[in-house]
């Protein structure tokens, strides 16, 4: 028994090291000047770390604006998703009928028809609305989230009816029920969904790539891609500094919410 656990630890440590290595590389390179990167110990942590790369990326590209845009887009998507889907999930969970059952299936199918597959028609729609090159265009297609409806319906269904009945006797209408019973009791699911939504849309690339054509509205991921194409010759220090810059906020957010996220994920049965 004991021996096996030693084998467990050796395997897991080895795997963890391999998986962490790219992150290590990202941070180590971001603090090196170009001379050090061409030197012989370029894979090891710098002896004289420098913040120069971070200053230079802000001079070379509008990463500040990209950050603000990303935050606007990601928050806009999440808020609208919750506002739109919470009432819908309430209907799916508590008012089952043929029609709501059929509509629910349409929401579930949407999970499996990613926007990435539908960029051409969606581009035409945004063009018709005159929304090309706007932040709104980066938000709207993600608002009707089938995944959110699926998760919240599961969570709402698990809430005991007795709580609801008590609230109804106290004079709660639909909105009161949502505010006082359903939303507070589904907090773990809402947290996990929010985390997944933010991480997913922080990561969005293809849709913002085709829908934007100016720096004023671009997001971080697109900014990074442009930056690579415009900087001729690989200045790895600067590239990695930019990479760290677009990654750090999401990692920090996760570390803050890590405990809630992992516990909810492992207990609430949210599985893909």
């Amino acid at each position, binding site marked *: 028994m004991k021996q096996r656990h030693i084998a467990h630890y050796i*395997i*897991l440590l080895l795997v*963890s090291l391999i*998986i962490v*290595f790219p*992150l290590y*590389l*990202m941070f180590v*390179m971001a603090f090196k000047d170009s001379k050090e990167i061409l030197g012989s110990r370029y894979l090891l942590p710098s002896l004289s770390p420098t913040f120069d790369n971070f200053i230079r990326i802000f001079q070379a590209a509008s990463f500040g604006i990209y950050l603000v845009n990303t935050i606007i887009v990601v928050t806009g998507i999440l808020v609208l998703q919750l506002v*739109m*889907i919470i*009432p*819908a999930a309430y*209907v799916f969970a508590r*008012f089952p009928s043929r029609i*709501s059952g059929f*509509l*629910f*299936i*349409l*929401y579930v199918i*949407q999970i*499996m*028809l*990613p926007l990435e*597959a*539908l*960029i*051409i*028609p969606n*581009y035409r*729609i945004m063009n018709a609305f005159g929304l090309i090159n706007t932040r709104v265009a980066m938000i709207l297609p993600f608002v*009707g989230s*089938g995944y959110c409806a699926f998760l919240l319906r599961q969570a709402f269904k698990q809430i005991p009816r007795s709580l609801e009945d008590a609230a109804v006797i106290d004079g709660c209408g*639909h909105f009161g029920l949502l505010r006082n019973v359903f939303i507070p009791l589904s907090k773990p699911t809402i947290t996990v969904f929010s985390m997944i939504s933010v*991480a997913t849309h*922080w*990561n969005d*690339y293809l849709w913002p*790539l085709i829908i934007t054509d100016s720096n004023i509205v671009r997001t*971080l*991921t*697109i900014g990074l891609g442009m930056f*690579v194409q415009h900087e001729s010759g690989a200045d*790895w220090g600067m*590239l*990695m500094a*930019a*990479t760290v810059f*677009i*990654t750090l906020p*999401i990692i920090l957010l*996760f570390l803050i919410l*890590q405990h809630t996220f*992992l516990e909810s*994920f*492992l*207990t609430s*049965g949210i*599985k893909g």
Partner: protein
Amino acid sequence: MKKRDPRIFLFLLPSFIFLSIFTYYPIFDAVGLSFHRYGAFNPKPIFQGLKNYIDFFKDPIFWQIILNNVLFGLGTILPTMIMALIFAILINEVRSLRTFFRLSLFYPMLIPYAAAAMVWVFIYDPSLGPINLILKLLKLKPIGWLGDSRYSLIAIIIMTVWKNLGYYMLIFLAGLQNIPRDLYEAATVEGTNWSQKHWHITIPLVGPSTLFVFVVSVIQSFKVFTQIYLMTEGGPGYSSNVLIYRTYEYGFKFWQLGRASTLTTLMIMILLFLVLIVFGVWGRKITYQAA
């Protein structure tokens, strides 16, 4: 509260409008345009029947791209799921360092693909990259990775496995929590060894939900774009080109929106076929819950 109050559907209406405009209307739009010649040089759509489809089916590049999609899908999902299950079992059985292992496996999930692509371009760099450095130390021939048509797709696959492993590990870890402990204790009393124990208990019990995760992953694998756009641009040649990337090229590089819609329609057909499988596997449960 009356059950049959039709006004309750007003709660569904806002999100359903979004769903209709950005998911369901686009399907009809793409199907309609797929029969037309339409693009930057033909601003008015001209109906031409099945010509776009026939042209694609005759085009060897199209078939290579389909093959790449299949290879990418299976090449990422199978290894990811197998490794994720093994690591989930291992993590579940150790006492200390659990959080460290969970975090170090999971964090790549949070890194945007654009950022991950940058780091991996460096890792695959023929001269500076650590992988070739190790190959050289082992006296093996260095590999051109992203610049070599034999390896470009494999390179993208490895990077994608690294990125998704932790997510699947968490899914399995959650599944493992539902297996009653006494099953394992009984097996230990019976004198079965570690691998027998998991082969006969863990895999059959985690298996059914795994099938569902597998099909959904196949669907998700069609979304691959960012790493290909930033790491290989579908090349060299067409060696790492996939359906979405090709659609992007037709739509926004060649500006042939008719043909891009044909590819979109084909992709929708493939996805809806997979959706049917999902419903076949899981459907009864979903419809049962919905009704």
